[in-house]
Structure formats: C-alpha cells, structure tokens
C-alpha cells in the first residue's frame, strides 16, 4: 500500500493533473472572492457571464492544445491533463449557460425560448453546451470502456463544438463590429483545428509510404 501511494504521489501524470485542477479552479476562486467583497462592478450579471465565457474559451483552447503538444514534445504525458482541462471547460461552460438561464432570463421558459429564437448566437452557444455535456458525461474511464471504439469518434465532436463556440462569440460581437478580442480567440481555436488537418495529412502520407514499402 505504502509503495503504491508513494508511486502515485511521485507519478508525474498525477502531479500534472493536480496542477491543472489547481490552476483551473483559480478563476472560480477569484469570483468567490470578488462576490464576497462586493467587487463585481456595476453590472455583476454581465461580469459573470463574460468572465465564465472567457474561461470556457481558455479551457477549450487548452484542451485542444494537448494533442498538438504531445506531438511536438514527443511525449504522451500531456494526455493526463487533457481530460481535466476538458472537464474544467465543461464546468465554466455550464456556469456560462447558467448565468444566461438564471441571472439573465430568470429561469423563465417562455423568455428563454424567445431569446433562443431572437438571438441565434444564444442558440449556437446552447448547442455547444449540449455537445460539451455529452463529452463530459462520457469522460469517466468506465464510460470510455463501455463506449469502446465509439469513444474516439464521439469525442472528435469537440471540433464541431469549437466551431460552434467561434461562431457564438463572433456573432455576439458582430453587432458592434468589435472583433478585437473575439478575432484572436477565433484565430487560435481555428488554428488548433487546422493543425489537426496537418496531422491527418502526415498520417496519411505515412500510411501511404508504409503500404508502398510494405
């Protein structure tokens, strides 16, 4: 028992996971502090909605960075962080959705339905959150085991999710023509998706060469 505990503590992937959880909880801790100090500013609903949206983006970009990082560093230790980051993304995404449903719409189903129709970017965000929920629900090891081969294609829907998130953000900012923040974030997410196309191409070439030589 003791040796296994020591090996667990010394296990670099466990340490990385813990570090990710610590870092990912900091924004939430900041909110708790700001709320306790009544320092959320003039429009607390707007602050929490935007802040949770921003941290969802950060976590999504970080999640999508782990696979490229694995390739570039030729180390698979990052895989341990990927799951934690994905769950953190779900956590902040859920708070973001909750800010809208509860604080902004007062959980009124009629208001919410109307808002989903009149503001399509809200509907896009909702669609993204639904995908995120499915991914989070199928994240535990037992779910992964149960899904078997289907797990990987299912979790590739994070690419669709990223595209929905980009559209959601850009559309939100389109009204005021203000892409100073949404632009760079979209570029980053699209970049992380494009990198994967390149991986696929390399993989294809590798397979093609392999079969030719074989």
């Amino acid at each position, binding site marked *: 028992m003791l040796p296994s505990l020591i090996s667990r503590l010394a296990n670099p992937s466990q340490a990385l996971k813990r570090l990710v959880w610590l870092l990912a909880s900091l924004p939430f801790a900041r909110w708790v502090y700001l709320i306790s100090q009544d320092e959320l*500013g*003039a*429009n*607390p*609903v*707007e602050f*929490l909605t935007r802040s949770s949206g921003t941290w969802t983006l950060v976590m999504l970009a970080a999640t999508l960075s782990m696979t490229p990082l694995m390739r570039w560093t030729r180390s698979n230790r990052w895989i341990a962080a990927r799951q934690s980051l994905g769950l953190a993304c779900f956590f902040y995404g859920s708070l973001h959705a909750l800010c809208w449903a*509860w*604080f902004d719409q*007062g959980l009124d189903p009629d208001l919410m339905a*109307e*808002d989903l129709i*009149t*503001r399509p*970017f809200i509907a896009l965000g909702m669609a993204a959150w639904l995908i995120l929920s499915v991914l989070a629900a199928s994240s535990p090891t037992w779910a992964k085991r149960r899904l078997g081969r289907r797990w990987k294609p299912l979790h590739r829907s994070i690419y669709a999710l990223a595209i929905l998130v980009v559209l959601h953000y850009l559309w939100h900012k389109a*009204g*005021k*023509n*203000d892409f*100073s923040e949404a632009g760079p974030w979209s570029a980053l997410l699209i970049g992380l998706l494009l990198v994967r196309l390149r991986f696929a191409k390399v993989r294809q070439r590798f397979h093609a060469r392999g079969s030719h030589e074989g």
Partner: protein
Amino acid sequence: MSNDLRASQPKTSEITAKRVWQQRRTVLQSLSATLLRGRVGLALGGASLLHHAHAQASVLTPPKPTGLELLAAAPSSFSTIEKPTSHRDVVSYNNFYEFGTDKEDPALLAGSLKTRPWTIRIEGEVAKPQTIDIETLLKLAPMEERIYRMRCVEGWSMVIPWLGYPLSALIKRVEPTGNAKFVEFLTLADRQQMPGLRSSVLQWPYTEGLRLDEAMHPLSLLSFGLYGEVLPKQNGAPVRLVVPWKYGFKSAKSIVRIRFVEKQPINSWMQSAPREYGFYSNVNPEVAHPRWSQASERRIGEDGLLSRKRKTLMFNGYADQVAGLYAGMDLRKFF
C-alpha cells in the same frame, strides 16, 4: 398605458431618498458657492479646502475622484424622483469607444483627454456661425440639475444627476435659418488623446444627430457635470449631450462641432449597422433590436444577480413630454 405608468412608479422606499438627496444637493451647492467665493483662497491654501470639501461630501455622497471642481446648479422639475445610480457605477461603467470598447476602459484611459482649451465650432444653416470657448459656454445659461433615466441600447439603465442647461439656449443664440431641419454633433477624434481610435469599430469622429425640434425640446440637455461636479472625462468631458428619451448612444460626448443642416445626418452607429440602429433611436419597448428584445432592462446597482429585470418604458418614461414630437409617425419604420 396606465399599467406602464404604474410600473414606472418606484417603491416607496426609494421615494424617501429624495429628501436625503435634496439635502445633499444643498450641501453641495453651499460648498461650491464657498469654493467659488474663495477662489483666491483656493489658489493659495485651497488644496486643503478642496480636500475638506471632498471629505465633507464623501460622508453624504459616494467617494469622488479628487481634482474635480464642483458646479453650482438649481434643481429642475424635469428630474425623476427615482434613486440615482451610485457615483461609483456612473463613473466606472461607461461606453465611450474612443477610449476602448470595454466598459472599464474609459475610466482607466480617459485621463489623457485634454479638456482645456476647448471650443465648439457652430456652423451651417445659422445666422450667427461662431466658435464658442468652453468658459463662455459654461456661463451661457443658468445651470440646472436634472436627474434623468438613462437607457442603454444594450439593455441596462442608470439614473444620473446631470448638470447643465437646455440645448435650446445655445441654439437660440446662433439663430438657425429656415433651412435648418437637423442638428449634427461631431465629437473629438484625436489619436494622441484617444487610444480607442486605433480600432475600426466605428468611423471617427463619432457623429450624432437630432431633428431641430428634438434638439429644441426642453428635456434635451447640454451637460457639463454630474453629481455636483465637473463631468469626469470618461463621461464625456467637458461638454456632452443628454437626450433622455433616446438610447444612450444618441447623447454624444466631448462635442467639438455642431452643424445645422437641411438633410438628415447619418450618425455613426447607423453608418456601422443601418439595419440595427436608426436615426431616431427612441427608447421603445415594442420595437426590438434585430438581435434582442428591448422590452426590459437591468437597472445598474439595483437589479442584482437574482432579481428580475424591470420593464422598459415607452420613450424611457418621458412619453408625456415627447410623444407629441412623433405624432403620426410609424415608430417601427423610423426606429
């Protein structure tokens, strides 16, 4: 209609605040009178006096940034009895894109705005085109305090105690000709002072416009201050427009030119998104913005995390005064 009016009535707990506010105002007025009388004293050992005044005032009103003079003004019957939004929120939550697009940006970055010397050039269809210096402008008519509701097109609102006088006082002075049908307001666009101009969110200078009869309406205010003090830079110093029955963006800040014209001017937001922002932009709960409803609003500082938003009132609650300006007009078409 009567329902709307009832909805506009504040709670009794809010009404009692009026006496307190008037008291504060009297204190501020006497303070500012003291300050004006003691100009010499101010110049010499006045720092402590000013400091004292601020210390005094801060007991009664929220803390103020130092270095702002106080303006004397008489109360106005146009004021609402609703509870004013806190000074802190009024001076820290601003849309002033010349200083950035975040609400916090203007308060952080507007320090670079130079409000002296300042002139307004008045031109176009007027008998007396002229350039008026800010000091002259300040003395053109007696200052009043007007506590107005301010409704932003984004769906939030405030109640702000402005200082100023009716825009009509300035208009009468320059004598518009028979051709003057509209008034166009052009605001400062100086890259040296305004970091936000680097962004292409809008075309600069920020331009707004009113129909001449709207501009002449007694509610239309040329404002030089708020909360008893000179306008903070982030709120549009040294002189701005306040048109309380229209969405906030119509109330142009840091005005440098006023043109009297025959044709309807194109304001900056119309130019940027003609489908979303119209020339009139009257507050109207029945006409939705193309991307969101305008039926309700969140009052800054009051409608908190868990309380419901309040209903938006026709013409921001000023229907009795201004509805006549739009008699017979289709407000869906002329949004």
